[in-house]
């Protein structure tokens, strides 16, 4: 018991104390969260603004200011149908109904290929396969059910779509595409009894080759229906009742382009004249059906969705949703801010700050608000004043390195600059796109040597036949240049070092073509860049190619093409590459080069910037192979220059998914252990073995040695490895980075639930001994006895109470102050935070009582003066006595 308490005490001391030392009121000073709803594709502008996005996010927004009220992250591709007080989401295999007011789940029902509509009397009609059900919208109780059957058709082929435009409040209309008859059959449903009556059958003209999309049918309030072919190219219409064939006509956009290939959004009846939204790559086209003909009524560049709204008079109108591009794109980078002295920007910013009278007014309003008498407008005024005067939000770099820009590249080609202190948008640049370009990455392009030069980044947009490299001034968001890129590239790899010029360093990238025999292009296509690439040709360049057989290291050949320098055939049948991680440490700040075991025995860390981790094995859900066995999870540490295996381990029962991170001389990987039924974290540390072992005295007297080692003749290594159980399922792994690498790093574990957990490296130390009582050496080194379970402490969550939906990536950059690291967690949302892995040892705490210090100093000064006076008077009095 006593030993267990000692072990527990050590564990508790290892948990980062700085993480506990934060009050809830201080959280907004160090972190921020931007929640996104995704690219909105469907919305309902009724009493509540309900949106559904391409990413499957169902959300309710405040109609006044767009504020997020509630949000549910569903499967991508879900559809939305709204009714009175209910938002129904249709997923491929189920239907969920949420309360529009707070997002609470009202009911859920499995349904394959379902469609839903509300009748005018508040019932909900749900079709699934060949059945139709009438439900109570509030609780999902089935009131009536019927089988849908069309004469001459296979029952299993019935995929009815349901619409609310019935003859009266209790009826609904079902449209069924009958493929054998090639006709659109219309049934009328009595929502009270569930009885179905066929009222129409409209044959599709033979000239129309494509089938109709039953989901894209609209019934007008009158007696006419509209239908669109599955490819969105042809619009057909007919009277609702009767058996007259459909009248069909191929449609074109407002600029006379055919609609073929364009994505057609769900036709939404909107009064007597439904708007037909058609999504194009450039925007949204709106069509209206009037007087028996379809005509384009609007084209909205950048529009991404349409919704039906009722105006004050109760008339229907179509609203266009513009710009739903979420800030969760494929790339992100953190770069420096503009130097405050340049161009008088800081002086202009200071001049724009509120004056003395405004400050006085804001302070009075603040006092009034604190007393509980402030209005909402006054609170907003105070917030605006605080925002305008907050030093953290200055758009210039600071000496501590806390203020930086975060450049986020969205999928639709927008580059957005965010302030690292609170995430507010500094500038936005919509990049030019011609044709179907895919925006991939944002990379460094030009870094000035001085504080006054221009910092540039490059955005790579790739297409099948070619792409573009957009060079952007990071300070202003100005597009500086657009360079052509060749097509057919697998990736772009940076050269090991940038090209040094007179006033800046230019980064050079080498294209990795899909065709191994094709020459590798160099970006930029300049003589200096080509010379730098040729100079690096002798090296492996650290370019890795991953394929079905494993990993290959590429180098630049004499003919300008990339050639394989080494191969690691680690994968094969039943075994795939589950994760590849490369060193996240900066070469110029690798951290301490030695570690004292037990406080006395100093070992050199094996600091290899090309250290690469490769995990191979069976992915999740993989069954046994032909021999009835499942391959174990195997982890290799390779030298990325030579491909030499430095260390490897095997975990029986280990499965994917695997997340991994490599930093300094250690690596960590997270995997699922099917044998234990638990998540596990493995960790390995590498040290140099042999005669390079030194003592503390030698280090103190001789100083740090030259630790450069040739890659092709590596030293003998000592490896220490261990694995631990954890309760947290990881979606991403990262590691904190600081300016000089001397602050103890922490493992960042991004969970599938959207949180980021900071795990002290000492808890992951593979040398934690399996003993009951810690030895003096262990105590000196801070090593806790081994425990298979990693602790879970609330204060160690970097995200605190926030949650990053679909967390996928962690980006940690150092601040100028050694104690601090800046975190960016990316997913559907963005989360930024300032972390202090080993507490803020080089900072004055934010709650430092400056006023008290001044009072104490003034008090002591006054007291000293008074004492001097009293002393003098007393001396005189004594002399006179």
């Amino acid at each position, binding site marked *: 018991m006593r030993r267990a308490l000692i072990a527990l005490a050590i564990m508790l001391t290892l948990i980062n104390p700085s993480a506990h030392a934060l*009050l809830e009121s201080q959280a907004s000073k160090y972190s921020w969260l931007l929640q996104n709803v995704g690219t909105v594709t469907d919305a309902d502008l009724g009493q509540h603004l309900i949106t559904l996005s391409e990413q499957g996010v169902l959300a309710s927004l405040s109609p006044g200011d767009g504020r997020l009220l509630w949000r549910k992250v569903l499967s991508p591709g879900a559809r939305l149908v709204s009714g009175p007080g209910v938002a129904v989401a249709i997923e491929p295999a189920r239907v969920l109904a949420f309360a529009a007011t707070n997002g609470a789940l009202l009911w859920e029902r499995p349904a394959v290929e379902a469609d839903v509509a509300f009748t005018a009397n508040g019932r909900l009609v749900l079709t699934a396969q060949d059945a139709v059900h009438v439900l109570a919208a509030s609780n999902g109780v089935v009131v009536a059910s019927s089988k849908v059957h069309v004469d001459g058709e296979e029952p299993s082929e019935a995929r009815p779509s349901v619409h609310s435009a019935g003859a009266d409040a209790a009826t609904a209309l079902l449209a069924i595409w009958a493929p054998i008859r090639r006709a659109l059959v219309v049934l009328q449903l009595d929502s009270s009894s569930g009885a179905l009556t066929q009222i129409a059958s409209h044959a599709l003209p033979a000239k129309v080759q494509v089938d109709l999309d039953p989901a894209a049918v609209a019934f007008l309030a009158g007696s006419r229906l509209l239908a669109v072919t599955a490819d969105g190219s042809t619009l057909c219409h007919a009277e609702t009742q009767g058996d007259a064939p459909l009248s069909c006509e191929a449609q074109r956009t407002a600029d006379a382009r055919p609609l073929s290939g364009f994505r057609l959004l769900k036709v939404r009846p909107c009064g007597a004249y439904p708007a037909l939204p058609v999504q194009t790559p450039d925007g949204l086209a709106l069509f209206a059906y009037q007087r028996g003909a379809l005509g384009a009524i609007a084209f909205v560049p950048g529009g991404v969705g349409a919704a039906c709204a009722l105006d004050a008079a109760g008339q229907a109108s179509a609203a266009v949703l513009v710009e739903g591009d979420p800030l969760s794109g494929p790339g992100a980078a953190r770069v420096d801010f503009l130097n405050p002295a340049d161009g008088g920007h800081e002086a202009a910013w200071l001049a724009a700050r509120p004056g003395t009278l405004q400050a006085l007014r804001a302070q009075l309003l603040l006092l009034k608000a604190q007393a509980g008498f402030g209005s909402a407008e006054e609170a907003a005024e105070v917030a605006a004043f605080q925002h305008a005067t907050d030093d953290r939000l200055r758009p210039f770099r600071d000496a501590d390195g806390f203020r930086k820009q975060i450049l986020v590249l969205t999928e639709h080609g927008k580059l957005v600059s965010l302030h690292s202190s609170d995430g507010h948008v500094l500038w936005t640049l919509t990049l030019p796109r011609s044709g179907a370009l895919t925006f991939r990455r944002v990379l460094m392009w030009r870094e000035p040597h001085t504080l006054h030069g221009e910092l540039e980044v490059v955005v790579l947009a790739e297409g099948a036949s070619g792409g573009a490299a957009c060079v952007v001034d990071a300070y202003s968001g100005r597009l500086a240049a657009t360079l052509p890129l060749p097509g057919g590239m697998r990736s772009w790899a940076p050269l090991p070092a940038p090209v040094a010029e007179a006033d800046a360093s230019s980064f050079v990238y080498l294209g990795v073509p899909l065709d191994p025999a094709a020459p590798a292009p160099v970006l930029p296509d300049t003589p200096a860049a080509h010379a730098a690439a040729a100079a690096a040709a002798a090296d492996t360049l650290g370019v890795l190619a991953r394929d079905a057989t494993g990993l290959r290291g590429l180098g630049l050949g004499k003919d300008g093409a990339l050639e394989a320098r080494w191969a690691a055939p680690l994968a094969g049948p039943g075994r795939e590459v589950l994760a590849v991680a490369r060193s996240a440490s900066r070469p110029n700040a690798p951290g301490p080069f030695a570690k004292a075991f037990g406080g006395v025995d100093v070992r050199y860390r094996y600091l290899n910037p090309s250290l690469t981790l490769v995990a191979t094995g069976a992915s999740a859900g993989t069954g046994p192979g032909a021999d009835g066995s499942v391959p174990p999870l195997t982890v290799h540490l390779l030298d990325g220059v030579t491909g030499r295996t430095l260390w490897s381990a095997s975990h029986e029962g280990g499965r994917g998914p695997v997340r991994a991170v490599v930093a300094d001389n250690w690596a960590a990987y997270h995997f699922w252990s099917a044998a234990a039924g638990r998540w596990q974290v493995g960790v390995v540390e590498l040290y140099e073995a042999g005669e390079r072992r030194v003592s503390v005295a030698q280090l103190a007297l001789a100083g740090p040695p030259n630790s450069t080692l040739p890659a092709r003749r590596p030293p003998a290594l000592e490896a220490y490895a261990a694995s631990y159980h954890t*309760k947290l399922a990881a979606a991403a792994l990262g590691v904190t980075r600081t300016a000089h690498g001397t602050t103890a790093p922490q493992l960042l574990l991004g969970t599938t639930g959207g949180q980021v957990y900071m795990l002290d490296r000492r808890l992951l130390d593979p040398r934690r001994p399996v003993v009951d009582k810690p030895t003096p050496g262990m105590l000196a080194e801070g090593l806790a006895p081994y425990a298979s379970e990693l602790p879970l402490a*609330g204060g160690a969550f970097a995200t605190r*109470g926030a949650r990053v939906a679909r967390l996928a990536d962690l980006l940690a950059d150092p601040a100028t102050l050694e104690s601090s690291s800046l975190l960016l967690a990316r997913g559907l949302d963005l989360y930024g935070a300032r972390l202090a892995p080993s507490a803020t040892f080089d900072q004055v705490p934010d709650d430092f*009582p400056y006023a008290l210090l001044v009072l104490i100093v003034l008090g002591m000064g006054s007291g000293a003066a008074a*004492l001097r006076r009293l002393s003098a008077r007393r001396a005189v009095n004594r002399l006179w006595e």
Partner: protein
Amino acid sequence: LDTTFNCEIAVNLRSEKTDQRPIVSHLLCKGMAGRLRPSLLVAALSLLVLLTPSTKAFDIEGRVILPETTPNALDTELVLSKEQGDEVRTFPLPDGRFAFHNVPAGKHYLEVELVGLVYSTVELTVGVAGDVNALLSDVINRPVVPYPLVLRPIGRLEFFQKPQPFNVMAFIKTPYGIMIIFGIFSLVVMPRLRAYSEELNSEETAEESTVPPPTVTAVASPRQLQQRRKDR
């Protein structure tokens, strides 16, 4: 007891919950005319049923207990990681009830995601007959959970330090408290020490010196002078 069989037996494994077509396996007995015991036939049939891939799917139901003081209870999500590798998410009803539909037989894992509360991971073993065995996989001894599931939180995470009330002793131990104590000491105690030291020094000096020290009594004070004037 020997029986000659000449039959065709169909084993219908039609799924009860899914829309998948029935799987029909035929066991032809026509060529097996011979001495086959009924028990062997039953065993063969049982083996066939076991070896035939099952497509049955079932519902997993339960209730997650949400403390009344949970402000973000509506953000609760339940994640079912299936043996087949895919993952299904759902939400509980306001009263905590939840259901996963069309869950195939196998070993699955269920987790509750709610920021601020910790729940145990539940290992679910769904049999081919739809029987569900549940146990807490990350708790020592892996206790069994009765079905339908009732999931209770095992802990609450405190993300922030709670503000502490003002503590005089803690303040005195801070640098500011020490400064104040030192200031008071300098103002109040040190002058007394200085006065005592001067007196002590003067006494010692008086004792050690053979030469009488110059006295200031020769100089009359203003009060003495005034008294002398009155006396005159």
